[in-house]
């Protein structure tokens, strides 16, 4: 659906994006992760056509993405709409700019307000809305024209826990019917609804992780021992090359390549070691992210 190829972007002689390449398939929900200043917002602004890139290409169904503005819904980091407009007027304004006709808008605005839970706030002025409500209004303007692709830039970062919860529920509903890209640095939120993560650091893609990455990358095993070995070295074998003691009877075993549970169990049985439990260690997205963006 979307392909970004060898994208380069410089702002005021500073390289913001370098050789950024990835693609997103229809129906995916992709998290764009990165520390502050990594280039996430610049990448999104290039993808939405707000900024022009110097090199590379961004295509939507094989044609330049700028030709598909009607198919893109976008939520910016700041959602301070015109304070004097009501919610309905704001949506009407954005609908007109999207080329929607008056009849369609009259019917659709109330439906969209209902979808984002603002059906009773249609006549409220934007200045009367809370942060969470403004964010939901922001999502309403992004989905008003029924886009095929929804790009949300830090949709929950500035919200309190209640507002955050409201917006997260809304995103979970939206991802069922449209392709979604969510830029965030709040990893717990991203892991809740993303199928895949693209990690960006200093303007470069440093990771492109599938949802099942944690399951397929089976290089670590968490084992609980009944009888504790005298030294952790005793747990090493031809397969296990690293042992980390997490608690007196819990150890994290790391293999040079993929580990096999049955082989490890057999090795321990041969050494007459008592195993209480054994399972593959699944790293969380936060751990993977920190590993990928760390400077060491």
């Amino acid at each position, binding site marked *: 659906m979307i392909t970004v190829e060898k994208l380069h972007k410089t702002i005021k002689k500073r390289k913001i994006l370098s050789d950024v390449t990835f693609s997103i398939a229809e129906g995916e929900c992709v998290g764009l992760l990165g520390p502050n200043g990594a280039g996430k917002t610049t990448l999104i602004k290039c993808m939405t056509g707000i900024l022009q890139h110097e090199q590379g290409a961004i295509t939507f169904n094989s044609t330049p993405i700028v030709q598909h503005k009607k198919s893109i819904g976008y939520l910016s980091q700041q959602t301070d709409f015109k304070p*004097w407009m009501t919610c309905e007027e704001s949506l009407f304004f954005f609908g007109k700019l999207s080329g929607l006709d008056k009849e369609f808008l009259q019917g659709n605005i109330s439906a969209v307000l209902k979808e984002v839970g603002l059906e009773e706030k249609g006549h409220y002025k934007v200045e009367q809305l809370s942060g969470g409500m403004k964010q939901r209004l922001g999502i309403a303007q992004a989905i008003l024209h029924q886009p095929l692709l929804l790009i949300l830039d830090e949709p929950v970062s500035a919200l309190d826990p209640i507002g955050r919860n409201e917006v997260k529920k809304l995103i979970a509903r939206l991802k069922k019917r449209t392709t979604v890209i969510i830029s965030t640095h709040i990893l717990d939120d991203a892991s809740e609804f993303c199928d895949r993560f693209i990690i960006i650091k200093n303007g470069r893609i440093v990771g492109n992780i599938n949802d099942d990455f944690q399951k397929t990358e089976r290089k670590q095993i968490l084992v609980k021992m009944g009888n504790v070995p005298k030294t952790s070295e005793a747990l090493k074998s031809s397969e296990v090359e690293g042992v980390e003691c997490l608690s007196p009877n819990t150890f994290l075993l790391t293999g040079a390549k993929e580990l096999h549970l049955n082989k490890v169990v057999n090795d321990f049985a041969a050494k007459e070691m008592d195993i209480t439990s054994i399972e593959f260690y699944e790293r969380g997205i936060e751990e993977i992210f920190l590993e990928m963006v760390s400077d060491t």
Partner: protein
Amino acid sequence: MTNFYTLTRTELVEAAKEFKFIWLTLFFVILGLTQPLITKYMDVILENVGGADGITIDPNRPVPSSAEVLLSTISGQFNQIGLIILIISLMGLIAADRNSGMQDFILTRPVSLRSYLVSKLAGHWIISMFSISIGAVVSYVYTIFLFGSFSFSNFVLFLLLYSLWILFVVSLAILISTFVKSPILIAVTTIAASIFFILIKGFNHLLFQLSPGGILNLAENQLLSVHDLNYFSIATCLAFISLNLSWASRNLKKA
């Protein structure tokens, strides 16, 4: 065209909601009133207000013509204090949109940068000219009442040409807004640049021809009944407006 209309209309409604039409118009009406009144009643004002010890006003001084009074209103009031306040009122025209995220929301729609910038130009030019025109008409009425008649067609021609200068100032504010983020700095830089363009036109004929400020001389000539429609000054001013918008558009695309 629909987008241009929608965006321009929003600018105008916003100005109405923020009472900009009222306070800016009142300001220019006060400016337009004070010059003819002060010129006519300076001796009475000094007599009543006091502090005129040692100042003698020649009772036989020549009475200025209505053209001279109108000219001093425009050059002395509108183009100095008026211009500064006008530019201060323009300082948020792009910055506010950028800081609130509105600019991003608008530009991710099928809206061209040209439509966005031209709607800003048109909207703020209409607001500015509405206020300036009412102030100028009040000044015109008071001037002909106090100092004698003056050709209305010349006055209208003056306003038309002066509106081109205002169009240039708005385009300059738009351009500077794409370089600078702080609204105060936008205002200060636009004021300085406008003064620069007014000053350089007086250096020599070539600079006069090449400066967008040349349009001011052309406008003022209509008040002095000098019917010299220098089309080159009009073309220069329009070229600068176009250049400012293109440059602004390029800046927004790049960063």
